[in-house]
């Protein structure tokens, strides 16, 4: 699987994504600078976490207008899988590849901690290695992670089963207490219409190594390798 990781000024989880991808695929991904209008042939494009453009204006707003994003949008619309993690999810919503917006956390503060997520779809490119309704642990680290979409959009997302992950407790119960940032419907991540573009606030690349405390993240990268090879 050939992967590309887009690097914006201020991205800082690009190396983390590259390490996780190399561990899963056996080859280092291409690191693509935002200023390049050209993008190599890729089976997967990753928009990593960080503070692209310092979160000026709105998180992800300026990155969405980078030269390289024009090509990313084109490829996404043509079916190339695109994974947006944290700031990457924010860029995807600003670029119009996913609906809704990520707002300031309900607590108004940055939160870094492990959370439980319920896997809502186990049949996508990203999740074949997960079981239906499996409860996994991923870390979050964000100040602007509260997912919001208007009622109509939410209804559509739910109706089309496009919710990827929901914040839950360790038993898989989706409760207000388990919601770290006030996201509507406890939404932690969503898919586009074809299930090829995934945006999520938690960081799978940070829990893809037993030394770091867990490997729930590894399953996502392994799922991608298998799905794309198939």
């Amino acid at each position, binding site marked *: 699987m050939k992967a590309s990781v887009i690097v914006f000024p201020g991205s800082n989880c690009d190396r983390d994504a590259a390490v996780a991808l190399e561990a899963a695929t056996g080859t280092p991904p291409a690191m693509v600078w935002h200023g390049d209008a050209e993008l190599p042939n890729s089976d997967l494009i990753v928009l990593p976490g960080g503070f692209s453009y*310092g979160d000026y204006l709105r998180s992800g707003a300026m990155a969405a207008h980078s030269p390289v994003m024009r090509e990313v949008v084109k490829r996404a619309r043509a079916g190339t899988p695109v994974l947006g993690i944290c700031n990457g999810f924010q860029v995807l919503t600003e670029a119009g590849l996913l609906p809704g917006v990520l707002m300031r956390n309900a607590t108004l503060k940055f939160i870094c901690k492990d959370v439980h997520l319920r896997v809502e779809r186990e049949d996508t490119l990203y999740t074949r290695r997960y079981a239906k309704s499996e409860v996994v642990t991923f870390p979050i*680290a964000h100040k602007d992670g509260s997912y919001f979409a208007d009622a109509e959009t939410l209804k559509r997302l739910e109706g089309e089963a496009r919710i990827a992950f929901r914040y839950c407790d360790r038993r898989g119960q989706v409760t207000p207490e388990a919601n770290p940032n006030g996201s509507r419907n406890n939404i932690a991540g969503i898919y586009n219409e074809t299930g090829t573009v995934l945006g999520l606030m938690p960081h799978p690349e940070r829990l893809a190594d037993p030394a770091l405390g867990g490997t729930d993240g590894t399953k996502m990268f392994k799922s991608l390798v298998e799905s794309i090879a198939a």
Partner: protein
Amino acid sequence: MTQAKRAMTPELVAEHGLSAEEYRLLEEVLGREPSLTELGIFSVMWSEHCSYKSSRVWLRKLPTEGPQVIEGPGENAGVVDLGDGQAAVFKMESHNHPSYIEPYQGAATGVGGIMRDVFTMGARPVANMNALRFGAADHAKTRHLVAGVVSGIGDYGNCMGVPTIGGETNFDPRYNDNILVNAMCVGLVDVSRIFKSAAKGVGFPVVYVGSKTGRDGIHGATMASAEFDEASAEKRPTVQVGDPFTEKLLLEACLELMQEDAIVAIQDMGAAGLTSSSVEMADKGGVGIVLDLDHIPTREEGMTAYEMMLSESQERMLMVLKPGAEAAARRVFKKWELDFAIVGRTTDTGRLVVRHGSAIQADIPLSALAHAAPQYTRPWTPKRALAPIAPEDVPAPNSLTAALEAMMGSPHLCSRAWIWQQYDHMVMADTVQRPGGDAGVVRVHGTQKGLAMSCDVTPRYCAADAREGAKQAVAECWRNLTATGADPLAITDCLNFGNPERPEVMGEFVEAIEGMAEACRALSFPVVSGNVSLYNETNGVAIPPTPAVGGIGLIPDIDRMARIGLKSDGDVLILFGAEAGHLGQSLYLQILLNRAEGAPPPVDLDAERRVGDFVRGLIRGGRVSAVHDVSDGGLLVTVAEMAFAGGLGVELDATPEGLPAHAIWFGEDQGRYVVAAPWHEAAKILPEAVEAGVAVRIIGKVAGDALKLPGEAPLSLAALRAIHERWLPKFMGGS
């Protein structure tokens, strides 16, 4: 814009923080009256913050060498060998005065500044820590200061993408009007690619990179060298303003350029900005330097030479390049969209010459600026030693568990999660021990090695006895690293004290240095970098002496590393180290009885080493399941923290005869660790410890889900945890 010649009046000199005698010395080394720009340059270079004039004679007593030391104090940061061609680059710095005036920016720029000190040497920062001291909870400003400092540190470090993996926070009324913000940064570098600051070569280009220069932070260095009074709020423009996005670009651009062969010398512009960086770089290299301020990128109109030389605008570096490398360097900084300007060149005159608008605004011999600041051996008086308190003279609590609840729920011992959950402690995907344990640990990227780090000092001990307290700071840091299985390598420090012109404060400083030096020597734990912050007092009331220590250690294999969390039911709990029930200056005394009396616990450095080396050996041998050193609050607090971390309860044995039970459980004797081990290992370990001359005793075992003391009702872990987690979020107003 040329400056009119300004008359040198005594008022002008005093405003610049120079004494009459210092001014007389200035005119002597210059050979004439200074221009205003020259007066400004001298005032910052000879300020306490930049020249260390009150402390230099004493700092020489600190041990700074060892086989592991590649670079000691004097460079931008200290450098320590990690083996396999790699080194750790680290330093701690204070941003106390600015953080009191403007907590968010003061703390943020403290983080920014210390990170630049590390990456200017070619090291990518891999972890940050911080040591914070705030006033009492019931002091009107405390909440505002905590909120500002924590969000300032968080926003800056998080945006930079460097994990903040630990630190210390204390609340004490003596910091009411003088908070302390000490920021530490650790980076990794290849030994063959270390960059230094000595400018070499004549006629080489001097290049400015980073943010534009503005009027912020002018006289930040002199502000940090003076006490506060009622007028201090007017000092707001002296606080620097940070932009972590720009610093992230600067970090990447510098590291990118450092891969080529372009840079001769590089230093960040910190306190006293362009002045200190150009002076120090040229002086170290034995060259002169001429600066042409017409080329300085500015973001304000009409800045004068004085303003440009003194501005402390953040996120700027000064470099000397190899002739011919300018174009390649410019390309790198253009890619990262940062300002790049050739602002001068090196000369062979040994002088700093500053031109602006075709006039010479300053022409000063460099050695005078860098070395002629007077060094003071200020008069000092030792403090009278306090008598130790006998354990029998301290009243016992009605119930040990009720006392534990009171202690765990107090601001001194409660959970700090409210703070560190605002710091990204996992970015860079190498954090193998998160905040909450004895030391933060990051994996050395791409290897099996771990880099452990800890910040430590117990100010109430230092207030009672500065020498013994400073010894304890070094010893506790060494213990915290040892408790994870690391070999302690070296320390950095932030020496925070009051007004050195007062003999009792100077006495605290002198005694603290002696205590530190003794401990560093005995533990082979040298000082490789550091910072002194004096004049931390308001209206004549000083902070307690606070010599903060930041240490690093190496774990050869992170699969042989210890954590504090209890792991298995049935494990035996073992206490290593001698007990004497020392309650003087203890938290038990303070929290339960509202007394701050007695000598602090003495530190036996030989015992520290013997016990620590033995415990580290157990960890390396994979023989134990949890380790925690005993410190604030004493033994019962230590056990409770291990129980929380592991989610497992404990059944504790009756305490031995000879000392009151509360003295055993809450005494703060030094040099001790609690270790959990499987029974079959414990049976072997006990005689081995005795053989090694290490005091040892079984204190209980891992069992159930409560904390059970003989003769008392079990205390549910869930209930104790709730108490532990309650105070800080409630104090800060919502979690």
